[in-house]
């Protein structure tokens, strides 16, 4: 599903963010990426969503070889991947419903399909009754759940979550994690970065530790 072969990312001459990282993530896996701040976790995810290009190495996601990917094909790639951002990245002038519906609008779904799908996802993330609220009217946890709903509403094969619990209190953090687990159970490959040791320990999933841009450990079943 996701393949990275000796991927290096340099910023300028000295800033080595990733150093020959090789990874293989199978379909339906739930993978946690851990590491200290600046270790290269976010860079890794940005390479997968094609926000950035690698300096060296090969990336293949869902059968798409990034070396052969043209700029105009990037939107199509991003539609196949659901992304949850640490800072939510919600559209400020759109309601909860509209933010989630936006992900479906861009693939040309009809209003009927949207009106059928969005309420179900809102229900999944537990935001019933908040459909007409604007992001500024929601708490951090609620905003994060909108971001999750938007990422999963298209039922992507891959879900990338960059510190989805980073801005949340423990209770909300666990709400978010359980939503991600539920999505994973439906067959979506989940790739999530986190700082939260408690989540790592309790989830008991594959953990990839990044340190100074390198894969320092890759263990199955939690507990670093």
């Amino acid at each position, binding site marked *: 599903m996701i393949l990275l072969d000796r991927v290096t990312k340099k910023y300028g001459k000295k800033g080595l963010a990733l150093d020959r990282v090789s990874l293989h993530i199978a379909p339906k896996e739930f993978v946690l990426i851990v590491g200290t701040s600046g270790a290269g976790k976010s860079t890794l995810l940005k390479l997968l969503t094609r*926000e950035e290009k690698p300096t060296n190495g090969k990336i293949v996601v869902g059968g798409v070889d990034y070396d052969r990917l043209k700029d105009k094909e990037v939107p199509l790639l*991003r539609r196949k991947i659901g992304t949850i*951002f640490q800072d939510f*990245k919600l559209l400020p002038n759109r309601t909860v419903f509209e933010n989630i519906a*936006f992900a479906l609008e861009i693939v*040309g779904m009809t209003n009927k399909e949207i009106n059928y799908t969005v309420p179900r996802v809102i229900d999944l993330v537990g935001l019933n009754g908040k459909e007409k609220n604007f992001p500024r009217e929601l708490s951090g946890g609620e905003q994060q759940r909108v971001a999750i709903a938007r990422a999963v509403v298209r039922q992507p094969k891959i879900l990338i979550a960059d510190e989805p619990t980073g801005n949340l209190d423990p209770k909300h953090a666990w709400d978010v994690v359980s939503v991600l687990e539920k999505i994973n159970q439906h067959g979506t490959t989940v790739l999530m970065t986190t700082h939260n040791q408690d989540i790592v320990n309790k989830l008991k999933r594959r953990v990839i530790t990044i340190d100074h841009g390198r894969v320092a450990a890759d263990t199955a079943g939690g507990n670093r």
Partner: protein
Amino acid sequence: MKGSSFKRKLINAKRVFVTGAHSFFRNTWLSVAATIVMTITLACILVTFFASYTLNNTVKSFTEKIDVSIFFKTDATKEQIDEVSTKLRNDQDLQVKEITYISKEDARASFEEQNKDDIKTLQAIAQAKDAFPASIRVKTLDTAKLQEVVKITRQEKYKEIVDKDSYKDDAKRTAVDRLGNVAKFMRNGGLVFSVLFGAISILVILNTIRMTIFNRKDEIEIMQLIGASKWYIRGPFIVEAAIYGAIAGIIASFLFFVGALTQVVKLQSYVEEINLAVTRFNSSSWIIIPATIAIGMIIGAFSSYLAIRKHLKIKTIK
């Protein structure tokens, strides 16, 4: 398959319009600020257009009054006069606009008409058989060329038929020439000013739209990250800017026709051409108003298209 693709395009187009209209109302302050700037700019364009039209007409009617009359001797035949007319008309350098032949009879009739109440003069004139010579009135595109016209008619070979002309080589003439030059300068200057002002107006609108889009660059980035196509992101911004332009066009037209033009009429202008221009503009309002709205929409949409281009480049730093 084709049908479903068309249906999808139709749905997208509808969404682009609806989202653009929504954004206009949801970004109230940005919309109001951009619309005000566009209104002022469009109103200024209308006023400049009006001023330039009036100036042009004034200059035109002024220069149209400048001509030279060549008076022929009483024994000059119609054929000889026609020969002079043809010679002048065929000289490309003179840029002759119009030559009017006035026969002796026409001249007399015209004089009698003008002095119909002065019986003594009319009686005196009735005695003088050859008091009114035949003449031609020459107008050139460039008033400076009138001097060239009389240079020809004053040539030795025409001495036998040409008696005199109305061209004065004195201070009065210089004043007329100078006025002609001023008129020419004003016409060219007016054109340059209009073009320059038009360009500045477009720049002002472009920058206003650029600022509104800069304010929302994060939104553009988010849409890109979610996988929206360039047109799906760009479309609503273009629609929104076109709405600014349309509303600005309506308000600017209202300010111009109801505000400015009615005030000009109230001032009871001394220059006849201003009143004529007001009448002309009022009677053409059916085309000027839609044109102003269309210009506002086009400038707005185009500015938005240009302004958003920069933010739509996919940031793939290698």
